[in-house]
């Protein structure tokens, strides 16, 4: 396209896994000193492509040119040597190490592991406004700071090409703005940034060029100036983008969940303090907050998973405070956990066993304390059909399903216990657009049926679209109540970081 060789040129990249074609004939040019976005649904093959470019996996076919020279990347060390650095979606940091240790790991030869390295980190941090302190423990850092450590790690190695995999998935709007500020500084220094995302508005605002990937192959490269997010979405999925917005209010007078003065002591400060709210039947209450401000603890306290929690929890008049988690579930709580791999599923168990999980005391799939396989499989088949779980069969291992299908199975299971309260923690995190629309549909359906829904999400559009009311949580306290009809993501973002007042 131009006279100068592009920073990265990919030609005909292909990668097959048993039974899946992850990448097929991928062609991308990333020009020097630009931000190049790569968009596509989850499972479209973006992550595989980036692992290939970072040398984690080897391609089956195709060529990679970096700065005009063809290279073969057999390991991350090779990629680093050629000036390619990567910031993974799931941060690759050792929590119990300091920032310094995390940064110098693997690059000890550059500046040692002592004071010279510390000076270099401070220098880079100051040069790009990253605000990173070398001697802090990573586990004490927030999500935004961890991401800046990841970026610093890459810069420390002298990378010329920086890959960011879904960098905004975990950030609030203000942090996203800061990140974009940082990226523009990198661009100004002549570095090339490859930015992977499925948030189209962000992509349109930051990228100089956008490549769309669908089903493992590049379908188009577009200029953001002449493109709308709707057009991008259609390129991505080949159909219209769904929206989370709900219909007319179904909120009733009946209080389903009553939480009063919930507290949870922590190491330095309380994890939860004086949290009180009601959720009525047919109402969706959204909880907005920066990760680590007590959302997870709130959910776990309501579920009875946190010893030491104080205060009262009543479900439709029944006092749950002294009950175990199982009794609470039996009282009518459905729970979509935040981390489906850790809490929602047994990855190496078949779907029908996962169906019984959490319902292991209930008929008809359990009789006289023994599991009735036949009934369980029949009912799992029903969930698979009703909730559109795409799977070869109910004997498939949960691990083999994509994130979206795993999540649909969990939603189906939790809705099958006749709950009156549904707790959904990040229900659409890491699922593709199709599954996201389906899950939104199920939450709306639950609301129509008169369930009370507690929705935790980092996706502010999702919160605003689905909720009847939004409470903001900050350092374990509810600090403001918002009407989703009135509030903008920016206002919510300010309240979440404690910058703005409550409406």
């Amino acid at each position, binding site marked *: 396209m131009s006279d100068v060789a592009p920073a990265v040129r990919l030609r005909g990249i292909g990668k097959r896994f048993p039974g899946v074609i992850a990448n097929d004939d991928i062609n991308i040019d990333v020009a020097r000193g630009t931000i190049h976005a790569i968009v596509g649904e989850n499972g479209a093959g973006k992550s595989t492509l980036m692992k290939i470019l970072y040398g*984690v996996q080897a391609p089956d076919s195709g060529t990679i040119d970096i700065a005009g020279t063809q290279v073969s990347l057999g390991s991350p060390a090779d990629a680093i040597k050629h000036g390619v650095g990567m910031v993974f979606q799931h941060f*690759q940091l*050792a929590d*119990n190490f300091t920032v310094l240790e995390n940064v*110098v*790991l693997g690059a000890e030869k550059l500046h040692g*592991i002592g004071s010279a390295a510390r000076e270099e980190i401070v220098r880079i941090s100051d040069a790009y406004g990253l605000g990173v302190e070398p001697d802090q423990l990573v586990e*004490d850092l927030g999500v935004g700071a961890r991401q800046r450590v990841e970026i610093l790690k890459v810069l420390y190695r002298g990378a010329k090409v920086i890959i960011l995999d879904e960098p905004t998935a975990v950030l609030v709007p203000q942090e996203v703005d800061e990140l974009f500020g940082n990226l523009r500084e990198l661009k100004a220094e002549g570095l090339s940034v490859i930015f992977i995302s499925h948030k189209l508005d962000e992509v349109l605002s930051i990228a100089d060029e956008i490549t769309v990937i669908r089903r493992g192959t590049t379908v188009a490269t577009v200029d953001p100036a002449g493109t709308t997010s709707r057009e991008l979405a259609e390129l991505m999925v080949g159909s219209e983008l769904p929206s989370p917005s709900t219909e007319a209010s179904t909120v009733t007078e009946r209080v389903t969940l009553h939480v009063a003065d919930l507290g949870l002591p922590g190491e330095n400060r309380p994890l939860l303090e004086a949290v009180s709210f009601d959720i009525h039947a047919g109402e969706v209450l959204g909880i907005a907050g920066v990760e680590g401000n007590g959302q997870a603890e709130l959910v776990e306290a309501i579920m009875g998973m946190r010893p030491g929690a104080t205060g009262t929890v009543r479900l439709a008049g029944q006092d749950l405070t002294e009950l175990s988690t199982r009794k609470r579930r039996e009282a009518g709580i459905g729970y979509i956990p935040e981390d489906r791999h850790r809490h929602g599923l047994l990855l190496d168990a078949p779907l029908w066993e996962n169906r019984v999980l959490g319902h292991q005391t209930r008929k008809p799939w359990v009789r006289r304390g023994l599991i009735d396989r036949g009934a369980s499989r029949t009912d799992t088949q029903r969930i698979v059909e009703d909730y559109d779980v795409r799977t070869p069969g109910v004997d498939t291992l949960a691990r083999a399903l994509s994130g979206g299908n795993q999540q649909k199975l969990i939603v189906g299971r939790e809705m099958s216990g006749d709950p009156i309260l549904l707790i959904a923690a990040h229900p659409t995190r890491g699922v593709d657009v199709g599954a996201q629309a389906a899950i939104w549909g199920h939450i709306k359906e639950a609301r129509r049926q008169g369930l009370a829904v507690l929705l935790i999400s980092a996706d502010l559009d999702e919160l605003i679209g689905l909720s009847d009311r939004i409470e903001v949580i900050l350092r374990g306290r509810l600090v403001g109540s918002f009407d989703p009809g009135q509030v903008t993501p920016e206002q919510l973002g300010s309240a979440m970081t404690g910058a703005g007042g409550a409406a």
Partner: protein
Amino acid sequence: MSAVTRRLPRLWWLGAAVLVLLAISVLRVVTGAEDLASSGTVRATLIALVPIMLAGLGGLWSERAGVVNIGLEGMMVLGTYGAGYFGYHYGAWAGVAGALLMGAIGGLIHATATVVFGVDHIISGVAINIIAVGAVQYLASLTFVGLPGGGQTQSPKLDNVGSITIGPLSDALGEVEDQNIFFVSELAAVARAMVTNLSLLVVLAFVLLFVTYWVLWRTSFGLRLRSTGESPSAAESLGVAVLRYKFVAVLISGALAGLAGGFLAMVASSNYRDGQTGGRGYIGLAAMIFGNWRPGGLLAGSGLFGYTQTLGLRQGGTSVHALLLAVAVLAIGLAGYQLWRKQVRLAVGILVAAAALITVYAAIDVVPGDFVNITPYVVTLLVLAFASQRLRMPAADGQVYRRGSAG
């Protein structure tokens, strides 16, 4: 902020040692159990402590690289034989080398199984413990039968490595110790043990403790090795050859455990004997866990176990009897702390236990021998039960890692 709260004062261990010695002095005066801190006890404690510490160091190397090594016991057993065979045929230092080598062979098996083939760490370790005992019995009957003083269950008498004695200083300190001055005598006893018949292997063990600290926490090799135990996928994403570091760590772990076994055969005793390790590999592992996967803590843990074991052997009944009182006082202090944290139920429970201990202390004069022998093991259990609340093991400890898991 956190960096400040976490960091202990520079010479905290020295202060802690002085406090412990002071407590023992008080206990001696109160209970009249004279052997609590005699130089003989200190010397015996050093001998008892070193194998536990070396085994724990082995565990530290391995677990810092994310491989649980329950096979330390088996590697120690291999070490005892290695010391016996090579020590008899080629001299004392060859025995040391043989112990290291045999232990490293155990480590090689464990590393191959867990790191290369992804076998569960516990299963591999337990298998090594079982195989090592059988292998050593077989080798002993093959190589020691017919030698002077050797047989199926023991080797001939072995040469010892040299030891250090500074005569005049030792005598002078001995006189101070005999004066029975509060605290001063105890201090003298400790110092005297350091300058009288101090085995070179004891010195070597402490050097290894320091070298371990320095290598793991002050070199880039150590940083990489620890990173494979904290977050192997992060390490791999930065180009660290994770499996190679794990493999090396387990090899070193085995060699150190082997040296622990060799120490038992050559210094703590004077020949290889069947069943010589007596579960010290497990206690070493416990000492390491008690020490929060740090060398300093590991030393404290080994000291505790070594000391209680020694008390059992020297006027055991009286000394352990005195220890009961110390534990009771500690328990009362702990109960007060829990009361301050408003954990009333827990505090009451601990107080009841303390009262029971005091009752026992008042009711008998000497703890019966069988109970004395189990003291180190009871202490292991108790200490771990209390300490495990605040421990932090390497984040990826015990997990099998496969290459290509990064990202």
